[in-house]
């Protein structure tokens, strides 16, 4: 049995690695099909600074970025992949720095907001979903389900824009952008941490509210299904207390599949966060991703996208392992 499990894990790792290579290659080709020379922007600023001819400046810009315009896409592709294996995500022409450096300063902010949003939405969703299912058919269930469905009908970017305009622009209770005020030095003081939390509220809720609705509906569905299972009837027949059945039997069993999808949802949030961060000017990877598209920074774009795809695949792998641990049938495959 142990050997079987190990084989399953190794098989999945090899398979997901192949998927990763295909996905990253696809993204590389896609990004490099975008119109515009990525070195152009850099060349313009060089030409202005050093008072130079444009074609001369372009040559320098290509040298700085390590790009040979006559080099074929295939050569560039293999260099990109081999760099990636060394942990080098590439070079950003717009910020004139390595993508690794941008990831190092932006990824913590994204992970901070995503984990906060995931924690809050999962906890509230599990509670509301289980509550609604136990009150099935009552007005409370109707209210919870209807509100969750309506929230699902609001596109995330509309929600983000509404939160920003209502709470930051009109009511002025939330900041307009940034991860902390520009005039404050980062430190580990209580004051600074409170400022950071204050700036995270907007993006956090814009991410958490749609998730909350999704968890609620999923948990409601799972709970209703578990309540029909035979072992619940057995537990009732054995004379167990209703509260014990509700918490130990129903809630736990309804929650298990959701715990596995928790990893996947975190992975997908990495990608889905792009718009929220752009709208809130929150300096996470999504913000830089949006910027990279706008200024055609191919290096930054491929680097960040690869990072997001790696994140999703790692999350998928973790979810599969959790599924295998929860559901013995998966191992037999």
């Amino acid at each position: 049995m142990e050997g079987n499990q190990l084989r399953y894990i190794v098989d999945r790792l090899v398979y997901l690695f192949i998927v990763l290579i295909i996905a990253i290659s696809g993204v590389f080709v896609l990004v490099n099909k975008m119109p515009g020379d990525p070195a152009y922007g850099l060349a313009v600023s060089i030409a202005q600074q050093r008072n130079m001819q444009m074609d001369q400046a372009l040559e320098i810009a290509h040298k700085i970025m390590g790009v040979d315009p006559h080099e074929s896409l295939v050569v560039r592709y293999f260099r990109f992949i081999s760099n990636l294996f060394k942990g080098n995500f590439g070079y950003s022409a717009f910020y004139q720095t390595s993508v690794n450096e941008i990831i190092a300063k932006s990824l913590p902010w994204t992970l901070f907001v995503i984990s906060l949003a995931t924690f809050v939405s999962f906890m509230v969703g599990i509670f509301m979903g289980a509550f609604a299912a136990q009150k099935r058919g009552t007005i409370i269930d109707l209210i919870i389900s209807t509100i969750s469905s309506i929230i699902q009908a609001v596109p995330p970017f509309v929600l983000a824009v509404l939160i920003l305009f209502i709470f930051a622009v009109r009511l002025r209770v939330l900041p307009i952008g940034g991860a902390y005020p520009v005039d404050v030095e980062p430190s580990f003081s209580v004051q600074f941490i409170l400022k950071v939390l204050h700036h995270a509220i907007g993006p956090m809720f814009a991410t958490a509210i749609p998730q909350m609705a999704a968890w609620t509906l999923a948990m409601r569905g799972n709970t209703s299904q578990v309540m029909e299972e035979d072992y619940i009837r057995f537990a009732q027949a054995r004379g167990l207390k209703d509260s014990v059945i509700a918490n130990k039997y129903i809630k736990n069993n309804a929650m298990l599949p959701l715990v596995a999808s928790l990893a996947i949802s975190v992975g997908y949030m990495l990608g889905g966060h792009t718009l929220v961060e752009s709208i809130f000017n929150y300096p996470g990877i999504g913000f830089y991703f949006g910027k990279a598209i706008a200024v055609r920074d191919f290096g930054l774009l491929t680097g960040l996208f690869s990072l997001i795809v790696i994140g999703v695949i790692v999350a998928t792998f973790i979810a599969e392992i959790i599924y295998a641990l929860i559901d013995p049938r998966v191992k037999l495959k």
Partner: protein
Amino acid sequence: MKNRRFSNFFYDYIQPILTNKKSLIGLIILSFFILMATIGPLVVPLNMNSNFAERYQKPSLKHPFGTDYFGVDIFQQIVHGSRSVISLTLLASLFAVIIGTIFGVARGYIEGIAGKILDAVITVFLVIPSFPALLILAAIFTNAKLNAVEIALLVAIWLWAPLAKQISAQVLAIKSKEFIEASRMLNMGLGYILFSDIAKLLIPYIFINFVTQIKSAMEFSIGLMFLGLAKFDPTHWGIMLNYALYQAGALYTPKGFHYPFFIILNIVLLIYGGILLAQGIEEVFNPKLRGHE
């Protein structure tokens, strides 16, 4: 004979959808918008000429949703825009379902290396995050004037993979059933087995997915327009919302609040109709939600 068939179809598929409360309400909401998209533009004239004397008028009998920054009637724009909103969404969902079904059935039926390759292709599209990829794709075409079919295809590329995955699992489960074996013994041919034997069982399933796609298809296409990444009909609600929030800054002026409000209200109501119909149909046809048989 034909009549029998039709009445069976009615009792098997139509009646359960009409008796489920959620799908009925969803259907009513969607019918309202489809009516708006089909005959609305014929009944309501569109006058896009700016009239600065009338800018940011409050909702009234003359202007049911008020007027925008340029003094143009918002209701007229919503009615005319519904045509492109709904046609784009339906086209995108349709394309996603067609691509997803072809890949799903092929993956489920074909064995060996070819099957593995198909499976990898589906997984690649599953792990690539849709919205960022859509943004890049849209940036590639940002200067091209795309028609509805092209934009719908652009959106559909990022929607089909989950459906393909589910369908391949269904096909894997059905293909070892006796009647498929029987068809194979009778040398009925791959085409017959795939499109007659297997597809017949999948149709309710595919239909559910067509409806559940509507939400993301709408969200994606409106998002594309909202970000100004695809040039299209200026009365498309995504483009209207972009104008309202970014060009006209309607949320900064107290007078302009109704402008984005009515656009958002229509977007949310339309998507909500789709969600209700999907939830209702799922309750009716998904055996898992139906409980034990």
